[in-house]
């Protein structure tokens, strides 16, 4: 009984999903699978001689050049409970399905070579006579629908849950019966809840079978309780549907208003998250500068280029890992971070020893020299890697997002926030808890006195610059995940980093932190109100005015050496 019911449901999919059905021969759908089954049972038997014009069947639609025909064919194939159908759709999803140019033949071409879709026997088609089955978003959508339907009925519990959540977000009236069936057989509370959500969404979506007002109201209430943008979209569609009962539409409008109110509150949290994540990026790129500029007083205009080199190191490490141990490709960033630190520190030492050490006491000259250096580094990277972007991929564990209430938390941004916090803590520990940190602070506060106390300021200078450069390299690793990796990367960050350090107060890491977060959150708060550009301009003006009021930033560092 149950079996019949869902077969019926699948038949409904076909009827609703395909306008193609009107012209395609329906009988093939019941006959062909069994015929294929018989042939597949006897693989030794020679393949029958191909007829001059093969009769079109459910599959031949896939060989069409029209997306509507292909989509309809997918829906039709999806209703068949045969291994062929399953394999075919799987091959289509993984680009392994090829169609003959005659509009009929279909082959799967994967690691095992070519084989005919209908018979399952190996084939050797003329490569010039086949093309990959055409795929576009419409076809992909049809495929996802069919696969969700299949998963709902035959999948593992996890697959069923995934299919149910997909349905809740992309309600498809054709699957209503399937959802009902799944609800009947579900023994899992989580699945049950998701299915109910999906059902409510389906009932309210356009093209759903007419329900009585009570059911509609219940569905509206369910979506209202659920909240979120997808629920809102369904409700909005329903409220705009003029054939629906007025009472239910009013309820939908109220539900939308309620969701909007909740969304507004969540939006504040979302904005705070965006602000913090922007602030973290600013913090990361500014921290290195807070060391070189803040502690040493070197106006390092090549700081952005060190960030860029960090990003390129990530690219190289990724490429190397892919070549040597592809299995580790998920961990490239973990390897890239120390690599970038080491590479950039080494370059930092080189810069300090060969250039900056001759310019101590002449801070403005370092500006000019490092500006020249930044031009050279940019051009060098351009010569070596080319002027176009290089691709740094995001590992699986860093892609995507998860919902936290009504907020979308993107993994890469979250990781950057945590990374920035970790780097900040590490830097603090170095400065506060190590001998080097002590010496560094001593040199900052009073260089002459520190020298007299026996600190080798030259060595401290080199190490400090290396540390700052290394942190810039770490920032490069993070930036490679969200921005272009190109020779121009550094230029985009240099002004912001200087502003953060100066705004926060030179030589004070806490100030840098406070300034980065203020600028990040401020920017993200102003952006929706004024637009990105005007928001940024206003922020800059505010910072300028602030510095006029407090000439040494938010947290001025006190010390004898600082006051001139």
């Amino acid at each position, binding site marked *: 009984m149950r079996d019949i019911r869902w077969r019926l449901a699948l038949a409904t999919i076909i009827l609703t999903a395909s306008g193609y059905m009107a012209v395609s021969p329906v009988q093939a759908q019941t006959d062909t699978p069994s015929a294929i089954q018989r042939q597949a049972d006897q693989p030794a038997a020679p393949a029958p001689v191909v007829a001059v014009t093969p009769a079109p069947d459910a599959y031949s639609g896939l060989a069409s050049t029209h997306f509507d025909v292909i989509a309809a064919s997918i829906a039709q194939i999806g209703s068949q409970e045969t291994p062929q159908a399953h394999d075919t759709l799987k091959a289509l999803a993984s680009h392994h399905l090829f169609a003959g140019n005659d509009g009929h033949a279909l082959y799967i071409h994967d690691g095992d070579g070519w084989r005919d879709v209908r018979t399952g026997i190996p084939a050797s088609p003329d490569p010039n006579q086949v093309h990959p089955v055409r795929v576009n978003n419409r076809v992909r959508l049809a495929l996802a629908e069919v696969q969700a339907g299949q998963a709902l009925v035959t999948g593992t519990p996890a697959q069923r849950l995934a299919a149910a959540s997909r349905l809740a977000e992309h309600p498809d009236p054709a699957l209503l019966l399937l959802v009902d069936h799944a609800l009947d057989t579900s023994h899992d509370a989580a699945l049950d809840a998701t299915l109910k959500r999906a059902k409510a969404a389906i009932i309210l979506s356009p093209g759903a079978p007419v329900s009585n007002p009570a059911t509609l109201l219940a569905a509206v209430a369910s979506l209202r309780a659920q909240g979120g943008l997808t629920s809102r979209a369904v409700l909005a569609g329903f409220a705009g549907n003029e054939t629906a009962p007025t009472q239910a539409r009013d309820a939908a409008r109220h539900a939308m208003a309620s969701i909007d109110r909740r969304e507004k509150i969540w939006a504040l949290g979302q904005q705070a998250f965006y602000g913090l994540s922007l602030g973290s990026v600013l913090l990361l790129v500014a921290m290195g500068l807070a060391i070189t500029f803040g502690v040493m007083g070197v106006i390092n205009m090549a700081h952005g280029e060190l960030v860029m080199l960090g990003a390129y190191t990530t690219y190289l490490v990724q490429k190397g890992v892919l070549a040597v141990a592809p299995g580790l490709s998920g961990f490239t960033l973990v390897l890239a971070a120390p690599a970038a630190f080491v590479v950039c520190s080494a370059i930092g030492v080189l810069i300090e020893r060969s250039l900056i050490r001759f310019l101590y006491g002449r801070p403005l000259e370092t500006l000019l020299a490092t500006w020249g250096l930044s031009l050279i580094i940019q051009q060098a990277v351009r*010569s070596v890697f080319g002027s176009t972007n290089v691709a740094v991929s995001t590992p699986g564990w860093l892609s995507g997002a998860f919902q936290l209430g009504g907020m979308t938390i993107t993994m890469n941004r979250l990781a950057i926030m945590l990374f920035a916090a970790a780097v900040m803590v590490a830097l603090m520990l170095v400065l506060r808890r190590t001998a080097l940190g002590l010496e560094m602070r001593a040199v900052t506060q009073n260089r002459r006195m520190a020298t007299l106390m026996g600190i080798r300021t030259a060595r401290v200078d080199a190490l400090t610059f290396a540390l700052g450069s290394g942190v810039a390299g770490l920032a490069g690793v993070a930036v490679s995940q969200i921005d272009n990796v190109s020779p121009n990367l550094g230029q985009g960050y240099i002004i912001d980093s200087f502003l953060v350090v100066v705004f926060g107060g*030179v030589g004070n890491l806490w100030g840098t932190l406070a300034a980065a977060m203020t600028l990040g959150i401020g920017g993200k708060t102003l952006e929706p109100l004024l637009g990105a550009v005007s928001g940024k301009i206003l922020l800059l003006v505010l910072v*300028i005015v602030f510095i006029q009021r407090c000439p040494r930033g938010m947290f001025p560092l006190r010390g004898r050496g600082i006051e001139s």
Partner: protein
Amino acid sequence: MTAGFGFRNVPRIACMVVIVAGFLSLGSLLPDSNPLSVSPFIVTLVGKYLAYAMLAVAVDLVWGFAGILTLGHAAFFALGGYAMGMYLTREIGTRGVYGNPDLPDFMVFLSWKSLPWYWWGSNHILMAIVLVFLVPGILAGLFGWLAFRSRVSGVYLSIVTQALTYALMLAFFQNGLGFGGNNGLTDFKDILGFDLHSQTTRATMLVFSALLLAGTMIGARWLVSGRFGRLLIAVRDAESRTRFLGYRPEQVKLLVWVVSAMIAALGGALYVIQVGIINPGEFAPANSIESVIWVAVGGRGTICGAVIGAVLVNFGKTLLTAWLPEAWLYGLGLLFILTTLFLPEGLMGLGHQVMRRRAEVTPEVTQTEGDAES
């Protein structure tokens, strides 16, 4: 600051600028066959260098003599350019692509119906000249008054000036602001009814620029050499001491700052006339930094050094971008590094060194204190 090699020779170099420019202008009017004829390309190029030299003099005035390292002087240069550009845009009249007699092309394309208020009067050259000086002057005055009064100095001031030009750049990039957005103002036809593309106009503009530059150089020298000049040097080298002596350093600085901004703006106005385009790219912080580098290459605090630095660096850029299009940045970068490492006082300093380095005693303390503040 003692009267250095470059500083002493300001009148001489100013005369040279005018003579060379006059020579080139006359040459450009000769027929091609004449061995002394000068390509019009050179005339526009030199015109551009002179406009840049004007900016360099402005930077030198504040950096070399008042110790204010500005990383935002290109903002005043660009504002002056826009003020002149507005006038030149209005001069196009009905010769724009849409043939609209009142509105510039970019406003027609944005479907604006009338000129915004700040374009009022921009069709008169006098208004343009007033705006060239007034707008950057007021901005500089406001900014300087706030900054010097609260004793923002050194690196802080540099970064804030950079933020200022950056904010202006972002603002001018916006199409809604009414200055043509990213495209800026271009495709000028006439100035005061004279065809901008004619040889005579170009030659005249070159001589005119040279005269203005020479005048500016001499004026700048006059400003910094008298009693006021000595005060300025005192403020640069020991601001606190000057203050304790009863002077008001912020007023001294403000005056130089505003004058310098106006000189930069004049450079911008000359630039637009001769280059034929002004757009928000001129506000880019990189341009400001480059102008500081011209001064450093030539020699800070010498006026002549600024002019020579601006012309030489830009001449080098012109040559290298054509000859070594893929490697010229190496050359430019190296130039900056080597100059700072081996020519701390620029080319003028080199000249000075050759002349009488040993005779001079540089007080160590003054040197250090000046650097801490600059």
